[in-house]
């Protein structure tokens, strides 16, 4: 018999409604899986046994009373630790926020609670979402369930791993430069960054405000759609949230790709891309062509500069966003005595990890008098060029495709001491953040080491329909059945 923890959300939702099992059963299954895997994986920073049990009970009571708040009712979902949860510690994996209990819920969290979702806990991440490996956590790194000597990607590594290992049915993360899609690719799950402004950022601890977007992880495209639908839509608490009715995305899942124009991005298929990754992506493109898609090659000439522009824009915004962590109103305060300025400077030096400090310094410099035009100002213009490239490409293509990550999961520690090498992990994902467009990663195979490869699909702003249409077809064509070794191996069975 299949372990309940391995069901899809869609399957679990139907079982809850036929009375096959209860929300309490589902929660017990994922918590059991967590107990078996957490020591090796460390996907979670906080497992909220008590809160989750209460939510599962409520869901079961609602079912019994004939109340149905949607398909997430009773489904165990994990949240990245940069999403504020009222009454549950939220740290963004930083020592500076250790012990902080928010007095409010992020809008996405409030919507999940209203939909009856069961929040299992808070997942590990790179501190303040700065990283691509989940090694930059103040509370220890997360490991990849396909090979525990390897990183799961990041920064939303904990959320990706919880889904890959079955310690949650679905999860949410945030994506500033690829932080959902890249770990999804490296752990063999589906991960998606919605159009900027589709999901409210209220209550998401900001890294780079003009790039951050909350998005879902799940084991199927259909499940990702269910998760997105629960949180998407206008929020009066986020000025940048898109004030338009959100369409349902489910209809797109079964329409196929006949006549859909698919552009393969030349710059993201060449140098720097691991040959095995390239081959898996190419094979998927060929299958799409066989299924009736009109496949062609397309160039995004500015994409080679996107990475450099990103590494000026994101640190600049973060240097200002993280100024509020000063030891005055919450979080760590240094015990070193002196003036308020001394207190702030020592609290920040003690509370932030090295990658965060590096980016704050970089951003402070890029915004400072005399350097603004050369760095930040110029980067914002490059952003315009990247957008123009996309606009031109979308004149000829409905979606663009590429690898999600240049490589499969890399060994723990390999890039930790080399910031530039780490930054290159995001070369394929960053352009969609700069343009604000939606983008998804779908697993399409494994390399010679048995590590999953992610296939990235990008669509124009608010083009979620066509994005899911193609993603669902890729999923069907590839029929990716491999599961993370740790989630299925005997070593973790009781």
């Amino acid at each position, binding site marked *: 018999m299949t372990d309940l923890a391995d069901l899809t959300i869609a399957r679990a939702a139907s079982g809850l409604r036929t009375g096959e099992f209860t929300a309490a059963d589902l929660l017990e299954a994922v918590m059991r899986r967590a107990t078996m895997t957490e020591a090796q994986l460390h996907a979670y920073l906080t497992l909220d046994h008590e809160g989750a049990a209460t939510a599962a009970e409520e869901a079961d009571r609602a079912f019994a009373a004939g109340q149905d708040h949607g398909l997430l009712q009773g489904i165990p979902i994990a949240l990245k630790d940069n*999403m*504020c949860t009222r009454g549950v510690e939220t740290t963004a994996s930083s020592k500076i926020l250790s012990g902080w209990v*928010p007095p409010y819920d992020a809008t996405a969290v409030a919507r999940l609670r209203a939909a009856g979702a069961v929040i299992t806990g808070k997942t590990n991440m790179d501190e303040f979402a700065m990283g691509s490996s989940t090694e930059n956590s103040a509370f220890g790194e997360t490991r990849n369930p396909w090979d525990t000597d390897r990183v799961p990607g990041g920064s939303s590594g904990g959320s990706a791993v919880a889904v890959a290992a079955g310690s949650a049915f679905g999860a949410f993360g945030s994506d500033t430069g690829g932080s959902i899609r890249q770990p999804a690719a490296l752990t063999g799950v589906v991960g998606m960054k919605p159009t900027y402004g589709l999901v409210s950022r209220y209550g998401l601890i900001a890294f780079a405000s003009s790039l951050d977007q909350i998005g879902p992880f799940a084991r199927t495209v259909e499940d990702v759609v269910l998760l997105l639908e629960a949180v998407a839509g206008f929020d009066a*608490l986020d*000025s940048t949230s898109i004030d338009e009715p959100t369409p349902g995305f489910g209809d797109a899942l079964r329409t196929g790709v006949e006549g859909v124009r698919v552009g393969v991005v030349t710059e993201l298929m060449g140098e720097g891309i691991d040959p095995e990754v390239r081959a898996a992506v190419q094979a998927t493109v060929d299958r799409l062509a066989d299924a009736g898609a009109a496949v062609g090659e397309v160039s995004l000439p500015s994409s080679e500069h996107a990475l450099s522009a990103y590494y000026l824009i994101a640190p600049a915004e973060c*240097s200002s966003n993280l*100024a509020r962590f000063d030891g005055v109103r919450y979080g760590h305060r240094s015990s070193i005595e002196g003036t308020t300025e001394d207190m702030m400077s020592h609290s920040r030096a003690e509370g932030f990890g090295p990658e965060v400090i590096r980016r704050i310094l970089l951003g402070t410099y890029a915004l400072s008098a005399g350097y*603004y035009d050369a760095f*930040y100002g110029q980067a914002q213009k490059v952003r315009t060029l990247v957008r123009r490239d996309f606009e031109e490409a979308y004149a000829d293509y409905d979606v663009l495709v590429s690898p999600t990550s240049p490589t499969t999961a890399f060994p723990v520690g390999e890039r930790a001491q080399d910031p530039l090498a780490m930054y290159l992990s995001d070369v394929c994902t960053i352009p969609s953040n700069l343009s604000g467009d939606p983008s998804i990663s779908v697993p399409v195979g494994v390399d010679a080491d048995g590590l999953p490869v992610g296939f990235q699909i990008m669509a124009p702003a608010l083009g979620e329909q066509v994005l899911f249409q193609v993603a669902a077809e890729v999923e069907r064509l590839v029929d990716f059945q491999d599961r993370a070794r740790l989630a299925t191996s005997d070593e973790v069975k009781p």
Partner: protein
Amino acid sequence: MKPGWEAVIGVETHVELSTRSKMFCRCPVDVDAAPNTACCPVCLALPGALPVPNEQAIEDIVKIGLALDCAINERSLFYRKNYFYPDLPKNYQISQYTFPVCEHGSIEIEAEDGPVTVGITRVHMEEDTGKSTHVGDGGGRIHDADHTLLDFNRAGVPLVEIVTEPDLRTPEQARAYGSELQRIVLALGVSDAKLEAGSMRFDVNVSVRRTGDPEFGTRTETKNVNSLRSLQRVVAFEIDRQVELIEAGGSVTQETRHWNEETAQTAAMRSKEESEDYRYFQDPDLLPLEVSEPWRDAILASLPELPADRRARYVEAGADAAAAELLADSRGLSSRFEEAVAAGANARTVAIWLTGDVVAHLRRIDGDIDATVLSGDHLAELSAMVEAGELSSSAAKDVLTATIDGEGSPRDIAEAKDLMQVSDVGEIEVAVDAVLAANADAVAKIADGDMKPMGFLIGQVMRETGGKADPKVVQQLVRAKTQG
């Protein structure tokens, strides 16, 4: 000012708007509430919170801009001004930098030495900080404090900053500017503009140069000046200090100073070690502001009458300039003035009563005009009685104070106190005849061309009538009967 020297003065004014809610969150604007009870995730800058701008505040700043004859930028931008200070929860202030809401305005002021046009460089939108209480031996002064307490009720209150061109030249002009700006803001109803409470405050830039020198001197900025009187004194002090310094062979340091009310001096604030680098950049949490032409036009159409226009209208109606200014500055006086004039009163007379006798009486009884029964109709009735010769102007003043004191309508009071003038010629003639008959000597002198006794005779008639005869009628009759 010392001959041979000229001052160049510019003023930056911060005005707290009196919207219901704060600039970027839904907390009430209530700075007097118990500490930290008017706060939320946004104005406390909790992790994850985001600002959403208050539409009313944008409408209010457009009002101010239009009243100051500014161009309203169709598109303006919010920036972050980054600096660390414990009363600034995000450690950046949301403000504006390039593209403020309003630019290139001007304001006419009336100073002792004549009218001056002051250019308005810009009017921009920003947010206030929290409030610090410095605790220690220094009695609340930051210099001697050993710790500081922070209340964030004020954090995020909408703040409008109004910046002038360096067009002011004297302490009196600076004061006149501050005063006129306060009047405009009050007339617009966008702020209570209380200087003593800090809802309006000035930063003043002063430099001096030798008369005729085209170059500006080095300027100082004195922060948080909180009365019109202090504004004038700060400027005067800085001018003297800077002139003396330069004449003694020294030079002015560009620095921030603060005004000490007790010593009546400015002093340099302890300088920060590094020069400020605010690292302004467009706030990615906020969208560009667009004030469309129809929106701007609707706001323009809703503007109330501005103080300068009101004063001009009162002068036009017959009030003198000084009275017009006093009237226009007071809602209570101006509303009664307008009612009285609308009811046909003599504007000049009513203006004098309101700004003289009424104000004086209110001061005596320590009262507020709106707490009295005095109405425009009362004033109109009183004015009509004087015009008709029924009441002498001195009796009218007594009636006026009695009316304020609630003793009844002017006519009722005048009658009850037996103050009505006798204007009936027949009745007065009897008294005149009696006085002339009793003073034949005087009558004879007048007949010989000696006019001196005329006043004596008129006085006698007034006495005979108990002071109630209309003096004009008495004079006419005496003249006619002695010279006829």
